[in-house]
């Protein structure tokens, strides 16, 4: 019996072999190349990267935009998940369509739509002027705020869905029990409801942060070359500057950030799981 089950393990070989050859190996080679020069092992590329103030600003901007995008997505998604868990019938369908339809659309389509919305002679400004909130067009395209709003919009479903799947399974008797024991609403929320929903928040935040730290199409269309992030710097080094050493180094840094997010969220998830 165990012989048959062990042979079943061989079925994983094609997929694992493929991913090892066409995904893990190229990434490992990229990392190796970033610390390799003609003379052998060297961190010179990294020293050069971190010595340049411009690169530090790009790195700081990338992390700041990703953090703020995650925060904005969380602020919208958390109450929405609760409303969705109470919704029935047609309202639940409306919520599901509003989440799944944008998820099925290309990021090029959505980023393009936001670049129309934010244009000086564009849609948001004509609405603002129409209701008399402003007399002259407000400069929106090419600002960091516009980028954060656009990115939060694109990644929002990936925050709502993990929180919703936790909230839906929440035992509503627990907050009620706390209330019958005299807990104040604030105490009930911070000590009962919030800790129980944290696994969903961690999963959603990890998704949104890792996607917004490495986004490329959205900032290209909304803020352009003047406010680069790490991904745009990579693309520029490879496609325009033809400086592959620099590009590989930045790619390795971005990869390190992505892996750190995965490991951190995994560690948080196990800790939260263990505490319950």
């Amino acid at each position: 019996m165990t012989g048959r089950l062990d042979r079943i393990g061989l079925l994983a070989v094609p997929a694992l072999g493929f991913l090892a050859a066409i995904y893990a190996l190229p990434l490992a080679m990229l990392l190796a190349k970033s610390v390799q020069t003609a003379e052998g092992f060297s961190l010179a590329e990294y020293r050069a990267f971190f010595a340049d103030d411009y690169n530090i600003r790009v790195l700081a901007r990338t992390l700041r935009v990703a953090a703020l995008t995650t925060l904005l997505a969380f602020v919208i998604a958390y109450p929405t998940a609760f409303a969705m868990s109470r919704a029935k019938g047609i309202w639940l369908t409306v919520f599901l369509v509003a989440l799944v339809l944008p998820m099925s659309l290309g990021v090029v389509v959505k980023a393009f739509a936001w670049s129309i919305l934010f244009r000086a002679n564009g849609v948001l400004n004509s609405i603002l002027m129409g209701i008399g909130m402003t007399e002259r067009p407000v400069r929106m395209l090419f600002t960091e705020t516009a980028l954060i709003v656009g990115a939060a919009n694109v990644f929002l479903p990936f925050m709502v869905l993990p929180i919703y799947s936790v909230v839906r399974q929440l035992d509503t008797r627990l907050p009620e029990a706390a209330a019958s024991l005299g807990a104040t609403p604030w105490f009930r929320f911070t000590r009962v409801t919030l800790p129980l929903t944290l696994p969903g928040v961690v999963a959603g935040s990890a998704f949104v942060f890792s996607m917004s730290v490495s986004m490329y199409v959205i900032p290209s269309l909304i803020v352009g070359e003047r406010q680069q992030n790490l991904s745009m710097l990579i693309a520029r080094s490879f496609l325009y500057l033809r400086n592959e050493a620099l590009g590989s180094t930045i790619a390795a840094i971005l990869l390190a950030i992505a892996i750190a997010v995965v490991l951190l969220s995994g560690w948080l998830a196990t800790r939260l799981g263990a505490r319950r």
Partner: protein
Amino acid sequence: MTRADRFALGLSWTVGLACITFLMLPIVITVVVSFTDSPVYTLPPPGWSFKWYAEAATRQGLWDAVLLSLNLALVSTAISLVLGTLAAIAVARGSFPGREAIATFAVSPLMMPGLVVGVALLQFFRDLGLRDAYWSLLLGHVVITLPFVMRTLLAAMNAFDFSLIDAARTLGLSYPKSILKVMIPNLAPAYLTGGLFAFLASMDNYPISIFLTDARNKTLPIKMLQYLEEQPDPSLAAMSSGLILLAVIVLAFGARTVGLNRMIQG
């Protein structure tokens, strides 16, 4: 219900409705703007027309890009479904150590920066001497689609009752036949969901494809971004509306056969 509960409920519904509006806003705007008769994006449009659709359909190279993207999405999803089925059976039924790690590894491309994977593949294929853009793109797109398929199939197979397979084998079916005739029909919703999201992710991919294309093989997202740089008129809104229509059709099909609620669990 206390006052605090009512306040919390009211707040969550207010934010929830704002969230729906926020999510639908870019889609609605794109569709409305695509029917304008003006060459600039103003709202409401000064007049209505289909002329940007006609304009979009005659843009040079559009249909080649559409065909290439459909080809890559269909072929890479099909390959991923085969590889993913085999690997998911191994993880769900095997007794070897490290099955958790295999599952995490197979889903991990979802969390990796697309551009970094693209750069790594560009250098790797060049070192190998693989110069053909179609094959490079296809291999890259299997890396994109496989995690979507694996995520859904792993969840579905962990819940699947494999004694059905044993029963089918007792009745004389071979192991591969019992997988094809018993397991796959039973897990049809998971196959459909995983396949649909994998297909859409491949259709949409920009950051990996951009490093693997050449002048003759450009996928749709790359072509659209190129049009946007050359001549950003409302014909782009018309193309986007075409893609929105495709997504609506795919989702309507998914909702009828699987149900929206089950699709989001995948």
